[in-house]
């Protein structure tokens, strides 16, 4: 399944809305979009995963990449991730580095 990526610039945050699978084949596209952002100066990054069915280790690496490039006090939100994706993120320990919310209203 392909991956659609939409980047929206807010006042203090950037929202990346994803649709499809984030896997070995599509994760480089996400990484490319993340690299194009000025992550080092970003207060808040929101990854909207409501329309994402699958995130492989390559997808997790892209999320880790973003978090590592962002300032220490910044926040990376994962919005609307499925139960399976949250389970993977929790088991890999990545949940300690990101904030998992069900919808953007919770931010």
């Amino acid at each position, binding site marked *: 399944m392909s991956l659609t990526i939409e980047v929206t610039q807010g006042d203090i945050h950037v929202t990346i809305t994803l649709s499809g699978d984030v*896997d*070995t*084949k599509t994760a480089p596209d996400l990484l490319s979009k993340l690299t194009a952002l000025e992550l080092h100066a970003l207060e808040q990054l929101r990854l909207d995963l409501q329309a994402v069915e*699958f995130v*492989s*280790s*390559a997808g997790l690496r892209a999320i880790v990449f973003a978090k590592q490039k962002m300032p220490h006090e910044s926040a990376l939100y994962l919005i609307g991730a499925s*139960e*399976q994706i949250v*389970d*993977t993120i929790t088991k890999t320990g990545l949940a300690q580095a990101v904030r998992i919310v069900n919808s953007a209203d919770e931010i």
Partner: protein
Amino acid sequence: MAGQELGSIEAAASMENWDKINDFISELIGQSIANASRGYKLRLASEELVSNIIRAAGELNSGEDKDISLQVSARLEQENGKSWFVVKTAIMVGILTHILVGAIPLIPSSISAKERLAAWGFSLLSSRLIRLPMTGLMNIISMSCG
């Protein structure tokens, strides 16, 4: 242990076939494992395995004339009253190998025995190529369907 073959696929181990191979596994997982969490975990493991094999095949093949293909098969196994979904991968490597054929009749008889031996060895190395298929690594991953 009773088993039921679900299908198999073989394709060149390259990113061009990544979708084809992963779609094949995902579809069978979707058909055979009702539990979404178990199916997702098996898909994670399968995707990782296939991606690693394709990546390794790319590195193995860099700069060399090898023909590497990936064979993936899936089956259902029954063990101790439980049903297991089993994914098996095998790597097939065809290597272009020098075959030793001589040009011994062309070696002049006037040269010394030592020179004849050297010329003989050289003629053996001046060879044509044949393809020798080899069976390589095999991986098996499984997940309970229950």
